[in-house]
């Protein structure tokens, strides 16, 4: 995973609540067996509308998505995170994310930042009135900065450390081999098995 420390870029306001993962990446895209090539599927249905915010010239090349509440609800598809990243997004800001989506994003180095709705509103207004306005998402200082906005955000220390260092979860867990083996040795015999080994 690529490390995330701080990122500054232009932002896109997405004024919709409950943006589900079927909107972020429709199911027919999930037939791919790779982690890349999902950029054209991102918000596919909405992008057919020339007025959709991602289609507006002023927002081309933006790297921060400022979304409405309950972003990423629905399916567990990690493809939603890959689609956002493949398109070029580095961070998503919302007042509330669905749990699985948030977990997936942090495992891929897409920073999901939770801010109060009123701060999200201010950021959306700012980038609507001035699409060239830059937004900084600073994981080191745990702060979002833009013109007239400085807002701290919470992220648990362990998740933050993994992101800052770009650490691979699996290799960290494999360091716990002896604890896993000890647990396995004590599992009751009535626990189900799918095959005899």
């Amino acid at each position: 995973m690529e490390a995330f420390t701080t990122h500054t870029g232009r932002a896109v306001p997405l004024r919709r609540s409950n943006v589900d993962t079927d909107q972020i990446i429709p199911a027919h895209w999930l037939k791919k067996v790779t982690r890349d090539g999902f950029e054209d599927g991102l918000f596919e249905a909405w992008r057919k509308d020339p007025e959709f915010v991602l289609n507006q010239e002023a927002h081309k090349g933006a790297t921060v998505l400022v979304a409405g509440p309950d972003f990423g609800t629905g399916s567990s598809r990690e493809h939603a995170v890959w689609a956002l990243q493949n398109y070029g997004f580095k961070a998503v800001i919302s007042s509330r994310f669905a749990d699985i989506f948030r977990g997936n994003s942090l495992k891929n180095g897409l920073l999901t930042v939770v801010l109060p709705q009123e701060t999200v509103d201010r950021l959306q207004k700012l980038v609507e009135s001035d699409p060239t306005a830059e937004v900084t998402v600073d994981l080191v200082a745990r702060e979002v900065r833009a013109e007239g906005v400085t807002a701290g955000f919470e992220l648990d220390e362990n998740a933050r450390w993994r992101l800052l260092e770009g650490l691979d979860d699996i290799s960290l867990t494999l360091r716990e081999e002896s604890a896993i083996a000890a647990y396995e040795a004590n599992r009751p015999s009535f626990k189900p098995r799918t095959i005899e080994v």
Partner: protein
Amino acid sequence: MGRTLAEKVWDDHVVRRAEGEPDLLFIDLHLLHEVTSPQAFDGLRKAGRGVRRTDLTIATEDHNTPTLDIDKPIADPVSRTQLETLRKNCAEFGVRLHPLGDVEQGVVHVVGPQLGLTQPGTTVVCGDSHTSTHGAFGALAFGIGTSQVEHVLATQTLPMAPFKTMAITVEGELPEGVTAKDLILAIIAKIGTGGGQGYVIEYRGSAIEKLSMEARMTICNMSIEAGARAGMIAPDRTTFDYLQGRDHAPRDGDWDAAVAYWQTLRTDDDAVFDAEVVIDAATLSPFVTWGTNPGQGAPLSANVPDPASYEDPSERFAAEKALEYMGLTAGQPLREISVDTVFVGSCTNGRIEDLRSAAAILEGRSVAEGVRMLIVPGSVRVSLEAVAEGLDKVFTAAGAEWRHAGCSMCLGMNPDQLAPGERSASTSNRNFEGRQGKGGRTHLVSPQVAAATAVLGHLASPADLSDVDVATPAGV
């Protein structure tokens, strides 16, 4: 202080606990399907890793599989590649697979329980949000992303952030004609699609205790639609009776030891939930969705709501958008909404009891002209059971299509899709824009409402059928 059911199961799976770090949990059962696993196997291959516990892992094919002509090559080359990739990966890594055509194939969340693999007090994961289904057995069951699928394959563990606990207590009797599906749709409408966020929900109370295992699975299945991490129901005699004798249920001395353990899996009297919701079962009635998220629902007897009635601007805007997408007008009675498609199936309502209840309504009746009704059993086993009971004949005699098992029109990854503008009454779990096909419009309903709707051609409950059909056989 006492512990809740969820806390007990969690505590029994902690491999390692350290200050400031997420607990590392052992995973008892890992279910795989073709959509969310290819990139995980690819990751293992690149890192030179294997599957740590093939004996705790099982795969099936469900999302992409066709429900017609299953003996012919799959027409869509991309779907075919994804299924072939799963077969290749399972062979290479030694994972048990039930492919299309196998007698144990079916929707992953139907297959696990019917094999007896889903057991009380286990941790169950799958790269699919509806893994919450397995919580009906008192298992702690989470949907996970592909990175986590790879993590479990490699280590049989997952680092998991702590959760909060919510009790949803449903007391009393569900009125006649009101099902588990109506109850969970009403719960989601009450607490909202974000209401369960960060929580593991425990469903409890006398109305829950009276439910069958299959009905309990319907409830836990849609916990994710309320935003919850998982849903659970304490195991009891109903659970044990369902499990006993199944292929992978414990036997002999192991059975007794297992039941002794399972009986400890109840929330202690002095345990405290972080949040509590109480629902009176007697107040419920058949419930349907009118909008584009599962929280936008109302009793079938109600009208399409007026977006102006919402105080919260973001909810108002969401309702406006939903009515526009759904082609509905505020104030329109829900019962007057005509549909052209009815889908009975999915991990929510594709089990034998669901098919029986739909068949009981269709027996001696016909699907309305211009309405297409698809019956898709949740698994091959469910299909065989239905055929043995003659349900397939009831469906086809009524004019419905009897299909092969799979996810089918729940998400339209296979050819079973709505055309733009088509409207369905669907027993599945999501009414998102385009979920069942680009431009398709979905109303989530129970199997009973689905069957009555198919007969009348508009959203309806079985009670609406009494005065329109003289051919009703006794007992329906």
